């Protein structure tokens, strides 16, 4: 799936990859990060 130019939600997780890290990666891929957060799954 091509991410460039698409609107993306970065749904990170505290014990995995955080939302901010995902958002940085996606921005470099040319995606438009419209919402990013880090969940805490219990």
């Amino acid at each position: 799936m091509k991410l460039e130019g698409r609107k993306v939600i970065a749904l990170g997780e505290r014990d995995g990859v955080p939302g901010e890290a995902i958002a940085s990666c996606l921005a470099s891929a040319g995606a438009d990060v419209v919402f990013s957060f880090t969940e805490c799954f219990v």
Partner: protein
Amino acid sequence: MGPESQSQIKAVADRFGTDDLVVVLGAADPEALEVAAETVTTGDPAYAGPLAGVSLGLPVVHILEPEVKEQVDPDVYSEQVGLLELTLDTDAVQTAMRKLRHEDGE
């Protein structure tokens, strides 16, 4: 997924529509991935949050999947995800993602 997060996702979907929207996950636990993916596709499995009964049907991928990684600037990926990629079980994540997208033949 918490009600606040669900509320934000719903607001984003309402604002931008679902046609051009993609969800990129970061969780490492297969169960957490399943819950997150289900929430943004068929609705909150716990029937507790704003996305209960709301089928957004959003496409779901994972930051640790090769098809996502290859689109990211290698320097940025290495800086942001490199260490996690080494410590997390990427095989389990990739298997879980294929399974929840029903790409495993089930």
